[in-house]
């Protein structure tokens, strides 16, 4: 069972690596932010799997913090960090 947990965690990490492509590529800031959201959800799943695999309950609290931070990050991005003039870059 532990092997499956670790294999799943590795698979989710590979998913994260694939998501990096969208961060590099863009084209809008929102696309990069979406990749950050993907990282949030996937990191929560990875941490929960690792918590179970190694029997470390503290990692579940880390996952909880990640879930909270992902939401706060996105709200801060939309309200504060996204400039209003990039409609010309949305093709592709």
């Amino acid at each position, binding site marked *: 069972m532990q092997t499956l947990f670790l294999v799943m965690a590795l698979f989710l990490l590979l998913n994260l690596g694939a998501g990096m492509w969208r961060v590099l590529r863009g084209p809008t800031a929102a696309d990069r932010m979406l990749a950050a959201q993907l990282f*949030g959800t996937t990191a929560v799943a990875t941490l929960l799997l690792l918590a179970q695999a190694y029997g470390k309950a503290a990692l579940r609290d880390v996952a909880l913090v990640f879930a909270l931070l992902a*939401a706060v990050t*996105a*709200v801060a991005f939309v309200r504060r960090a996204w400039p209003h003039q990039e409609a010309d870059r*949305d093709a592709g």
Partner: protein
Amino acid sequence: MTPGDYLAVALLIVGGVFFLAGTAGLLRFPDVYTRLHALTKADNVGLGLVVAGLALQAESWAVAGKLLLIWLLVLLAGASVAHLVAQAARQRGIKLWKR
């Protein structure tokens, strides 16, 4: 392995498939709105299935409940974020994808 273990393995693997679908959608879909759709739906279902699989293996009810709460928090956050980002994208004039 007990039947519960087999069920947990199945749930974890199906959850992984949903995560893969979410990532594929993020990489392949043509605009912000469709990517948002793929990401916030598929990934949250994937997380839910992984959480269900882990809850079957959890050592106590308290741990299972905590896993469920984490999932509910992510669901709530995902839904709010999807609407916020989509609304902000509309306000900034990002056009909907047309074939």
